[in-house]
């Protein structure tokens, strides 16, 4: 299960038992930290914490701050400064070296557009969504909180925006969608300042396993741990059977050319062709080539098999363009010396993760610079007349 799903589950439980709770959100990080902006944790009145905002160093203090916010029924911004820390007070255990802003929002169960209801909506949507959180670095000011969603068509859900902010904010969301990267803004309107975290809420990764053999069973199990949505498809009802896969997997029995009919493909949908049936894999590949939004197609089997597929496609007059060649990963997986089904699963999932995250999939020790790419991390200041 994804962290966000666990948080939502925990919220539902708290709501039905009427146990007050607080959402803690990392709204900005300057420098390095274990978790980045967008990390969330739900804390209930009894101190139960779901999710995480750090590697464990901030949670203890965060509990107190959450309970305080709850007591006051008021949002609260807290700064955790672990920069240049020589002496281990907080954070130093993990070598964090950053200034982390955490917003605590007591949740009003009765309010239909409370922060978690908005998260639920963003999580449900197939469309890419931006979730907007207003806060103020000057802590004595009102901390407005998580109040709206904007979808790819720039439709606003949730609380209406201040008219003066509307245009600029919509324009910024547009560029965040285009970049597929969250961003931070400081809007100066008259004498007031508004700090906002516009988080591009990533859709869950969907993994489509074409082939329902024993190796696919293992891969599905492993992908489930990552919280990915899983679809298993095969022409053989004996293999593509819901008995063989976890209940959360969608199992589809289909002819190769029909596979795509039942799947809603997005730019977070990864395919792995692993039927061990050359003809089936080839027909599915042919169908996938027309779907430009698919970011990843992995093909199980040796290079020879892939070459044969390319030759056969060429004989049919289908020449693959550069984009198509780039997203096909054959043989599938990273080179980690995998032998057993579980090891192969690890190799495949690591490759998919790296491709979807836009990284090289190498060793971090060989990477120059910070672990996380810090795109658009600064508060860009915009004066609105």
């Amino acid at each position, binding site marked *: 299960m994804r962290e966000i799903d666990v948080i939502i589950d925990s919220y539902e439980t708290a709501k039905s038992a009427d146990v007050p709770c607080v959402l803690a959100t990392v709204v900005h990080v300057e420098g390095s930290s274990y978790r980045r902006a967008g990390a969330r944790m739900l804390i209930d009145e009894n101190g139960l914490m779901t999710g995480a905002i750090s590697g464990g160093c901030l949670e203890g203090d965060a509990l107190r701050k959450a309970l*305080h916010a709850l007591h006051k029924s008021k949002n*609260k911004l807290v700064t955790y*400064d672990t920069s240049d820390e020589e002496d281990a007070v907080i954070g130093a255990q993990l070598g964090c070296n950053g200034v982390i802003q955490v917003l605590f929002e007591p949740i009003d169960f009765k309010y239909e557009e409370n922060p978690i209801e908005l998260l639920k909506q963003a999580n449900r949507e197939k469309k890419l969504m931006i979730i907007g959180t207003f806060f103020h670095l000057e802590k*004595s000011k009102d901390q407005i909180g998580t109040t709206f969603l904007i979808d790819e068509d720039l439709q606003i859900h949730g609380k209406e925006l201040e008219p003066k902010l509307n245009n600029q904010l919509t324009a910024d969301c547009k560029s965040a969608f285009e970049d597929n990267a969250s961003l931070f803004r400081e809007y100066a309107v008259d004498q007031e300042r508004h700090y906002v975290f516009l988080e591009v809420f990533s859709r869950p990764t969907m993994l489509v396993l074409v082939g329902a053999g024993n190796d696919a069973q293992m891969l599905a199990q492993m992908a489930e741990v990552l919280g990915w949505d899983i679809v298993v498809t095969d022409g053989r009802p004996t293999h593509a059977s819901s008995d063989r896969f976890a209940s959360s997997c969608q199992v589809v029995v289909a002819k190769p050319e029909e596979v795509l009919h039942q799947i809603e493909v997005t730019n977070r949908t990864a395919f792995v062709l692993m039927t061990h049936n050359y003809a089936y894999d080839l027909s599915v590949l042919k169908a996938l080539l027309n779907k430009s939004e698919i970011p990843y197609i992995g093909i199980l089997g040796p290079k020879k098999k892939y070459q044969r597929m390319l030759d056969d496609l060429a004989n049919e007059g289908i020449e693959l363009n550069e984009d198509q060649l780039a997203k096909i990963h054959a043989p599938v997986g990273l080179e980690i010396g995998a032998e057993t089904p579980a090891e192969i699963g690890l190799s495949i999932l690591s490759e998919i993760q790296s491709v979807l995250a836009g990284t090289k999939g190498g060793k971090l020790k060989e990477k120059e610079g910070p672990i996380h790419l810090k795109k658009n991390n600064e508060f860009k200041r915009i004066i609105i007349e």
Partner: protein
Amino acid sequence: MSHQPIYLDYNSTTPVDERVLEVMFPFFKEKFGNASSVYHTFGWDAEEAVDRARDQVANVIGAKSKEVIFTSGATEAINLALQGTFEANKGDKNHIITCETEHKAVLDTCDQLEKRGAKITYLRVNTDGIIDIDEFRACITNKTLLASFMYANNETGIMQPIQKIGEVCEEKGILFFSDATQAVGKIPCNLNELNTDMVAFSSHKMYGPKGVGALYIRRPSSIQPQIFGGGHEKGMRSGTLNVPGIVGFGQACELACELMEKDRERLQSLRDWLEKELLQLGSVNINGAKSERLPHVSNVSFEDVEGSKLIRALKGIAVSQGSACNSSVIEPSHVLKAMGLSHQLAYSSIRISLGRFTSEVEARKAVQIIRGAVEQLRMQLQ
């Protein structure tokens, strides 16, 4: 009914600003919690208030909040800085460089450290009250641990070349502590632009309550705590926090940020006018006039006046003669003497320090009173 004299001794202390007082009140009564009580909302409220105050205090000196340690005042902060640094580096380096015109809080602490094995160099100042940077540089040895120079002098308002001192300290790899009690909140002190490792300052010099001060510490590992018992303030200064005082200090800092420019401009022109008026008496010297000085301070020497009678003749105004902290013993000011003033002239000097609530009318009255008194005393001498 007795009339209160005109208060012109803001370097000694300041009245608490109404706006400061107002935010303090709840923390005596309904929000009386202990900032270290972690289990209930009384404690959380107090902790939140202290956190906010820490931000406000850090902001006035351009520091990070976590670099600010609350103390009972500047004297304690100075003691923590000097003793703490000495203790933390004992056996390694033991040489401290400071100067003759420092406040007693620094000089007396240095005396104590000397008894514990520290070597102290007291730099002289020139007639303008300024140390010689080359002399300072020449004093630094491989045993030098720390330099301690005040930002602005409490008696004269003269500012040491803090920027240059910091550069030398950085170059030579020694720690730099500055007593900025008179400067913070009065003039922009952006520690980001200075190479200070520690800076002490106080609330009651900037319209906050007495009994609270702060030490800015850039590298906590270079200091050994001096007060133990509970690990408050990250273990740097144990003891239950003075929450109302700290809240007031924070508010005073915020007000200072807001009003500094206006206050500074107004008081400087008032001070300059006042000095011009007093100079017309003749045989009057403004001490440190050639140096960069705090805008609201004037240290004036009157020749041909008997010093012991001067302060008593100025009944209508509250000013001080020499440094207030050692005026229980009548001694000429060590600061003025260090600047080369004769005993006699040092005796017949007064410090006028203006503040946020000094009006033009008061300044005009003060001039009248001083002129009257000086003229009368001079007649007596003839």
